[in-house]
């Protein structure tokens, strides 16, 4: 039984490594900062989550211990990787990196022209009702 779980863990780690390699291919071949950060953030985080889950199952099957640090690392990577990608993309746009010429839509430009601020401040608030 432990051997089967061990093999499942190893196959999970291998699948995660393949996801990481695919994200590296995307990081090399995609044409733009924003598309590249899309590849680098999402699929790399998914691959690392698979590898860490495999390690967790491996140590659970082999040593019979539940490693809380691995669970903490899984939660941490899952939370912080999209945040880092978002910050990096916003910094790239505000420092003037051009979009790819095949991009068809640019919502953040309108937001910057309208308000100059990013984030939830730019949501248009409805007019308060006037009292007679």
């Amino acid at each position, binding site marked *: 039984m432990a051997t089967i779980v061990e093999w499942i863990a190893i196959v999970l*780690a291998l699948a995660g490594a393949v996801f990481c390699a695919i994200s*590296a291919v995307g990081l090399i071949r995609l044409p733009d900062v924003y598309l590249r950060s899309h590849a680098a953030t999402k699929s*790399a*985080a998914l691959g690392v989550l698979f*590898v860490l889950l495999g390690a967790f199952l491996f140590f659970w099957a082999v040593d019979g211990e539940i490693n809380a640090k691995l669970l903490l690392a899984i939660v941490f990577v899952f939370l912080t990787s999209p945040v*880092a990608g978002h*910050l*990096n993309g916003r*910094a790239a746009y*505000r420092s003037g990196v051009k979009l790819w010429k095949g991009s068809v839509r640019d919502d953040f430009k309108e937001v910057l022209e309208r308000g100059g601020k990013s984030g939830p401040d730019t949501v248009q608030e409805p007019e308060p009702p006037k009292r007679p």
Partner: protein
Amino acid sequence: MTTVFLSVTLVILAVAVIGCAYRLIAGPSRSDRIAALDTIGINLLAMIAVFCMLLDTQALMEIILVIGILTFIGTTVLARYIERGSVIEDGDDR
């Protein structure tokens, strides 16, 4: 047999790190380099997890947490630097 599979996993992750290193060196903008550094850190974390499985020890788990935290803080600080031009602002305009 498990050693062979884990070694193959480690090699695939190393190839991924080399691909990110290409983008780190050749990236046209600074944000490219930051994204590549972030991905290198995360792949390094996965490599250490596989290395723990290969050596069958749990002594390296703290390194996973520390590298995760340092990667996130480094990416945040670098993105803030290229966005605002400074990391820690002392003004009252926040």
